[in-house]
């Protein structure tokens, strides 16, 4: 099963990268862009009996390693 995990900074947490990319887009002439935030996309494949069991495991992976839950939140899709 193919899994996409999206890890993003929590609201209110400063995103220096997003700030810099937003500024760069502006200087490139894209004046109508706002609120740029940079996060991580983690793609992986998982062998599991069924979707619920896969969901359990992916959740545990996020909590333990893939996301730093102090300043990041995560979502994921299982195809």
């Amino acid at each position, binding site marked *: 099963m193919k899994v996409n995990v999206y890890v993003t900074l929590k609201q*209110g*947490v*400063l995103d*220096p990268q997003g700030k*810099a990319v937003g*500024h760069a887009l502006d200087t490139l002439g894209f004046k109508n862009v706002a609120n740029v935030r940079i996060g991580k996309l983690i793609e992986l494949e998982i062998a599991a009996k069924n979707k619920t069991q896969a969901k359990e495991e992916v959740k545990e992976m996020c909590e333990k390693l893939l996301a*730093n839950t*102090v*300043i990041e939140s995560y979502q994921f899709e299982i195809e």
Partner: protein
Amino acid sequence: MDKNIIKQHGLSDEEYKAILKYLGREPNLVELGIFSVMWSEHCSYKSSRVHLKKFPTTGPQVICGPGENAGIVDIGDGQAIVFKMESHNHPSFIEPYQGAATGVGGILRDVFTMGARPIALLDSLRFGAANHAKTPQLVNGVVAGIAGYGNCMGIPTVGGEVYFDESYNGNILVNVMCVGLVKKHQIFRAKASGVGNPVIYVGSKTGRDGIHGATMASDVFDEGSEEKRPTVQVGDPFTEKLLLEACLELMQSAQGRKDVVGIQDMGAAGLTSSSVEMAGRGGVGFEMDLAKVPLRETGMTPYEIMLSESQERMLLVAKKGSEKRIKAFFEKWDLDSEVIGTVVKGGQLSLKVGDELVADLPTIPLTEKAPLYKRPIKKPAWQEKIQELDLATIPLLKDWQEPLLKLLASPSLASKQWVYRQFDHMVGIDTVMIPGGDAAVLRLKGTHKGIAMTTDCNSRYCYLDPFEGGKMAVAEAARNLVCVGAKPLAATDCLNFGNPEKPEIMWQFEQAVLGIAEACRVLGTPIVSGNVSLYNETKGEAIYPTPTIGMVGLLENVEDHCQLGFQQEGDLVVLLGELSEELGGSEYLKVIHGLTRGLPPRVSLDLEKRVQQLCLAGIHAHLIGSAHDCSEGGLAVALAESCFPRELGVEVQIGF
């Protein structure tokens, strides 16, 4: 004001009564918040100030002692060295990367706010036992955070130390030291003056980062600390690099020196501590309009704006009429700079939002008249017991090869190249002696001089005997500088201790301070700046007392710097000083026998001074080819470490 709101702000009943006296009325929430951060242990040093007075802080070489953002020492030819050490222990335990990174960002600002260009960083790190579950993740996060911030700023991280001990399992220590260089006529102070002068906010926008970071530093860690996660401060080294270059361009320009009256970085307690301290030092008041503060988030309350610890921000007081000139410096570097207030007569900090008054406080009670405690002191009942050590009970080993290898491989003694390899320790092209020696040495471009710097502390010695441990930390720092050929000049410190409300901890603190003070006096290295970090305790158990010492020394001629490793075959190896049977608190006892007992080695400061002078004279007369101090692991480890650099061997006769 509701009882538990006061408690949540870490204020005791007496402290709240004192607030009522100073205000003559109940404080509102914004005022209560301001009192709580300014009267926190972290900002007011209320439990330690009475002892810190015992440090020697003056000398012909001292230009500026404790009380300012950093200490300043004269090195001749119109130049001065600005340096200080700060701790970021609690934030680094919660979020290691950002905690350590913002620790670097904060100490850098303390140095360049005085007009100096930072030339080096050092980090003194203490983690739990290497095999403790949390240690690897904390080590990776802290080292990556220091590298991430320092490397991006282009300031070389040239030295420091890394120790592992179970005493830090629940409470790691991240002490960061910064050294800067300034021309004596370009020094700036954090003092406001001149009624009518504008108060200017420069740097990043304000968000809800780390609100109550200051009081958090004064909070004891317990089971609940995982949930009690205040929004930890997040650092942006790129913006700080812009802030550094913009501030230095302004402060080093002829016009800028006339325009800028005072400047201070927004550290712990952000806009509150910078505005209150600058106004307090100048004996003036500030009127500020919080509606003018550049904000990163919508709907922020005055309380949040005043207590936010967003990073990369400075507060500046300038001459009336120079606002445009100053704004141009920050616009060049795409930074915000807004006039948010003016200097007024009297000693009040009055805060408005538009024209609605939201706070009106006297500044002096927030700073000079903050509470001052003479906490009860009691020698711990267990102190004598842990000092008992009967060497007869320690089995005498037949084979010494095995233990020496075990010592050299133990986490605290093993090579830390895997750490400092991640730090850019060469940017600035001044690093003459890279990490791995007794101290780092940087050359000063345009002169023949060199600056040496080191951080030192053996916290096991301080646990067994805080007085001797304190003396040893200073003696060892000075010894390390002498071994690289430098004359020790002055010191800074980071005093990491447990909960001051416990008499045993205050006994440790007082004894360590007395030991440090005496060693500084005899060795002629006054304390010119520093930091106190208390409440380093988890579930009632305090860390070992850890008074880290940072010291700076001068080489008149940087070519005279001296290496640690043996230079060539046939050289004689000489032991300077006395060798006595002092195994108390040694690395040998800990690593080989798992014991932390006995009295640490006694430092005879007079002998120490003469040994150091002899070693320095020998180096400058080119009689000494290499020098290395005996510290953890004793003579055996010192000899082994001296063999490594040029892969030479050594033959030693042990007299008896």
